[in-house]
C-alpha cells in the first residue's frame, strides 16, 4: 500500500524486561530459565494461603541502574500496588506492581536514525512488578481441553519501561528497541531474549492526516524487534487507508500474526479491565536515599552510546564497524582486551568483524563460548606485524585458534609454517621459477609487468605459501633486473 497524502505516525512502546536477579521479586526461588516445570516454586510464589512478599533489593538496584542509564529521575518515595484480575497463570489473582508512584520517571533515550540528527525518545516511567506463570494449552486456546500451568516464571522481577508517544515511524521503534536492549545488556540486568520472553513489547500507534487522527490502537504478540517493526508498518498503512476512506475506527487491541504478517482484532475498549489498583498493604513504601543512588551510579559500566563515541573518536573506527562492535558487546570487550597486547584497534577490529565473526557465525556460537584468548589473537597479529607469518597464513590458522584455542606458536611449529625469510633459499626457488617460465619472463622484460604476479604465485606455490611476499618481490625484481 502506498499512500500519497502526508501523514504523521505516533507510536509509544511499553517494554517488559525480566531482570536477571538470582532470586525472584518477592521470594527466594531461583529464576533460571528452562528448569523442570514448577520446580522453581515455593509457597510465596505459588500464592499459598498465609504467605507474604519480601522485596528483592537487587531488583530495586537493577531498576535504579537502568533508570540512571536512561536519564530518569529516581523517586524518593515509591510504593507497590496490587493490580487485580483473574487469570490461571497468576497465583494470587493479583499482580504486585506499581501504579501511581513508580520508582523512576521522566527520562529519555537518544536514537540515531540513519538519516538526520539524533532523536530523543522520552521515557515516561519505569516500574517494578512480578511476572506471571506460563499457560500451556493443548492446541488452540479456545479449543484446548485442559491447560497446564508452569509457575517457574511467576514472581520473576519485571521492569516495565513506558515511552512517551515520541516515536514517529516503525523504523524508529526498531532503533529504540535495539538501543534499549544494548543498554540493558551492558548494564547486565537482563539478557533481553525476546524468544525466551525475557523482553516483551506492546505498542500503541495512531496516525493523522491533516486534522484527522485515528484513536490509539494497541498491538500485541510480537516476538522479535523485526516483528514489532513489521506489525507497526502494517498497522500504519492500515490506519492511513482507513482514514483516507473515511472509515470509523474505534480504540481497540490487535494481535500480530507472525506467519500471515498481519494484525487481527483482539478486543474492544469495552473489554478493558478494571484492575482495581490499591496500595499493597503487605509492603512498606520504598524510600531510596541519595547515598544509595550515588553508590549505584558508581557501579554503572560504560554504556553503548559512550562506547560508540570512544570507538569513533579514540580508535578511529568507522561508524559501521563501531555499530557492529557496540551491538555485539562481547566482541567489543574482546577488542579492548586484545588492545592490551596489541595496540592497533583497526587491525583487531578487521579480524574480529572479518574472519573471526565468519567462523563464529558458521559454528553458530559466540566469542565468549570459544577458547580463543585476546592474548593469542594479539600474538598472531604481532607475528604478522613482524612478518614471521603472512596474513594469508594467519587466515588458515585462525579457525583452529578460535575453535580449539591452540596457541598460534604451536600451530606455526606443528605445521612448519614459519615464513621463509632466508634470502638464499628464496633465491634458489626464484631462480628455479624463472627457469621454468621463460615465456612469462620475456613478457615482463618486454614491459608487461602485470605478469610478475604470476611468477610470485608460482614462487608461493613452491614454498607452500611460506615465502615472505615482500622479500619475494624484492629478490624477484633484483633478479629480473639483472637479466
Amino acid at each position: 500500500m502506498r499512500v500519497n497524502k502526508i501523514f504523521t505516525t505516533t507510536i509509544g512502546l511499553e517494554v517488559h524486561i525480566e531482570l536477571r536477579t538470582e532470586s525472584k521479586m518477592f521470594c527466594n526461588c531461583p529464576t533460571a530459565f528452562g528448569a523442570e516445570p514448577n520446580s522453581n516454586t515455593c509457597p510465596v510464589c505459588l500464592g499459598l494461603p498465609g504467605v507474604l512478599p519480601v522485596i528483592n533489593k537487587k531488583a530495586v538496584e537493577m531498576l535504579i541502574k537502568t533508570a540512571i542509564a536512561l536519564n530518569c529521575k529516581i523517586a524518593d518515595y515509591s510504593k507497590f500496588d496490587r493490580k487485580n484480575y483473574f487469570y490461571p497463570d497468576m497465583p494470587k489473582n493479583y499482580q504486585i506492581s506499581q501504579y501511581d508512584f513508580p520508582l523512576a520517571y521522566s527520562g529519555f533515550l537518544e536514537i540515531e536514525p540513519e538519516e538526520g540528527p539524533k532523536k530523543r525518545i522520552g521515557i515516561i516511567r519505569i516500574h517494578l512488578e512480578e511476572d506471571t506463570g506460563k499457560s500451556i494449552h493443548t492446541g488452540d486456546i479456545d479449543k484446548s481441553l485442559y491447560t497446564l500451568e508452569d509457575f517457574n516464571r511467576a514472581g520473576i522481577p519485571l521492569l516495565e519501561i513506558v515511552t512517551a508517544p515520541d516515536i514517529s515511524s516503525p523504523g524508529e521503534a526498531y532503533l529504540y528497541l535495539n538501543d534499549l536492549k544494548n543498554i540493558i545488556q551492558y548494564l547486565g540486568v537482563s539478557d533481553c531474549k525476546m524468544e525466551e520472553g525475557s523482553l516483551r513489547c506492546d505498542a500503541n500507534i495512531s496516525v493523522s492526516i491533516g486534522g484527522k487522527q485515528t484513536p490509539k490502537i494497541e498491538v500485541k504478540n510480537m516476538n522479535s524487534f523485526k516483528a514489532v517493526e513489521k506489525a507497526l508498518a502494517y498497522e500504519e498503512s492500515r490506519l492511513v487507508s482507513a482514514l483516507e476512506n473515511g472509515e470509523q475506527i474505534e480504540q481497540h487491541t490487535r494481535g500480530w500474526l507472525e506467519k500471515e504478517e498481519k494484525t487481527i482484532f483482539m478486543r474492544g475498549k469495552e473489554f478493558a479491565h478494571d484492575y482495581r489498583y490499591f496500595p499493597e498493604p503487605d509492603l512498606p513504601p520504598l524510600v531510596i536515599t541519595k547515598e544509595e543512588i550515588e553508590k549505584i551510579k558508581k557501579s554503572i559500566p560504560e554504556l553503548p552510546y559512550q562506547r560508540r563515541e570512544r570507538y569513533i573518536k579514540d580508535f578511529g573506527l568507522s561508524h559501521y564497524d563501531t555499530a557492529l562492535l557496540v551491538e555485539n558487546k562481547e566482541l567489543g570487550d574482546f577488542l579492548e582486551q586484545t588492545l592490551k597486547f596489541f595496540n592497533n584497534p583497526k587491525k583487531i577490529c578487521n579480524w574480529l568483524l572479518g574472519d573471526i565473526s565468519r567462523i563464529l557465525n558458521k559454528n553458530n556460537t559466540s566469542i565468549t563460548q570459544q577458547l580463543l584468548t585476546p592474548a593469542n589473537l594479539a600474538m598472531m597479529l604481532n607475528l604478522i606485524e613482524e612478518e614471521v607469518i603472512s596474513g594469508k597464513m594467519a587466515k588458515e590458522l585462525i579457525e583452529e585458534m578460535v575453535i580449539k584455542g591452540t596457541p598460534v606458536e604451536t600451530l606455526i611449529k606443528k605445521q612448519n609454517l614459519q615464513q621463509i625469510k632466508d634470502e638464499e633459499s628464496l633465491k634458489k626457488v626464484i631462480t628455479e621459477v624463472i627457469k621454468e617460465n621463460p615465456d612469462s619472463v620475456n613478457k615482463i622484460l618486454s614491459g608487461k609487468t602485470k605478469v610478475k604476479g604470476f611468477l610470485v604465485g608460482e614462487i608461493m606455490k613452491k614454498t607452500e605459501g611460506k615465502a615472505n611476499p615482500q622479500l619475494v618481490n624484492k629478490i624477484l625484481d633484483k633478479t629480473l633486473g639483472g637479466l
Partner: protein
Amino acid sequence: MKAVEIKQAISDRKVKAEEVVCSCFDRISEVESKIKSFLYIAKEKAIEQAKEIDKKIASGRSIGKLAGIPVSIKDNICTEGMPTTCASRILTNFISPYNATVVDKILAEDGILLGKNNCDEFAMGSSTENSFFFPTTNPWDITRVPGGSSGGSASAVASGEVPLSLGTDTGGSIRQPASLCGIVGLKPTYGRVSRFGLVAFASSLDQIGPMGRCVEDIALLLEVIAGKDWRDSTSAPIKVDEYSKELSAIDPDSIKVALIKELLQEEGIEEGVKDVIYNSVKILSDLGFKIEEVSLPHLAYSLPVYYLISSAEASSNLARYDGVRYGERKEVKDGNVFDMYINTRTIGLGPEVKRRIMLGTFALSAGYYDAYYLKAQKVRTLIKQEFRKAFDKYQILLGAVSPTVAFKLGEKLDNPVQMYLSDICTLPASLAGIPALSLPVGLYNCLPVGLQIIGDYFCESLLLKVAYILEKEIGVFTPVFNEGK
C-alpha cells in the same frame, strides 16, 4: 491450672508434660461434643511432642519458655501437616506445607500444639456461626455464641480444654470473644507479631494475639510470638520486652487513664455491661490510677471505615481461592476456566464472605475508589491522629469491648448490620493499629463482661501491667461448662 503454673510444675518435675496433655484431652472428651471449639485435634502428635519434652527434662537438657504447655491455634494460621481450613469449604482439603512464624516460635519454645480452633469463615464474623463446619458454643451457656471470629479459641480456653490459644484480630476478633467467654485476649500493636502464615483477611489490620485465662499466661505467649520477622515486611524491628517477668512493676499513681466516652456511653451499649465496667473503673481508681474522661468524636465513623477498608483488602486477598492450585475445585461441564472460577467460588465460599468480597470489589472499582476506599483511608488517618493526641495526655484508654454479653445462637444471623455492631467498640484500636486487651471484669446476667484496655503503639507491657493489677483485685474465672437454661 494457669499455663505459668503448668510450666513450673513440669520443670519442677511434679507433673509430666504427657499428663498435662492427657488431662486436656480428658477435658476435651468431656465437653467438646457440646462446645465444638476444635476443627482438628492433633492428639497423637501432641502426646508424642509431650513425651519428647518429658525426655528432655529427664535428661536435664534446657527447656523452652512454653515447655509442656498445650496451645491451640485458630484455623486461619498455617500449621504444617495439619489442616488449615479457615473454616471455609473452599479450603476443606488444604494442608499447609509450612508453619506460620508464630507456630514455629511456639514449637521452638517447646509449646505443644493441641489442634486447630473453629472460627468464622476467613475470620469474617462476630459469633463463629459463619464457620462452614458448625458453630461453636459459649461454655458459659451453650445456647449462646462464644463471639468471633476467634470463638473456637475463646471457648476452648474458657471451658478448660486448653490453657492458651492463638487467635487473630482484624476488627475485634480476639477481644470480643474473649469478652463474651470471660478470658483474657490481647490484640498486639500492628507489626508486633509476624503475620507470615496467617491467612490474610485484611492485611493492614490483621494481627495474631494470645488468648488465655489470665494475664500472666498471655504475657508469656506474647513474649514468645512477638518480634521482627524478615518474612513479614510489616513486622516491626522493635525490641520485645520480657512481658511475663515485669508484670508487677507498676506505680498506679503515675499513670493517667481516660475513659473513652464513645466506647462506653453509646446507647447501643447495654446498661448492665456499662455497670460492670464502671465498677472495674472504680477499682482502678481505688488502686490509685488517675481516671478522666475523653471524647474521640471521629471514632463514630469506625464502622463504615472498617468495612470499606477490610472488605477492599479481603476482595483482593481472597481472590487466590479459585480452585486452580489447591482447595476444592468445582468444574462446569463444557465450561471454560472462568465458569470454573464462578462455580468453585459460588459453592466454596459462604454468604458473609461473598458479601464482603462484593462490597470490597465495588469499593475499589474505577469511579468509586476515591469516594469509598480513599475516603475511608483518610478518615482512618483522622482516627489515628485522634488517638495520638489522646496519648499525648494519657497512657491508658478504657472502654467496653462488646456492647452486649453473649447473645443467643442464631439471634443476629439474619441481620448483618446488627452483627457488625458487635464490633463497634473494638474497631477503633484496629484501625489505629494500637494494642488493646480484653480483661474479664465481672458478670451481667451470669455472663462475662470484658473491659477494653487500650495503649499506645508497642506499649503492650503497660497494658499487661494494668490488666494484671486489676486482675489481682477481681480474680481469674475458673473453667466453666454450663449446658444452659
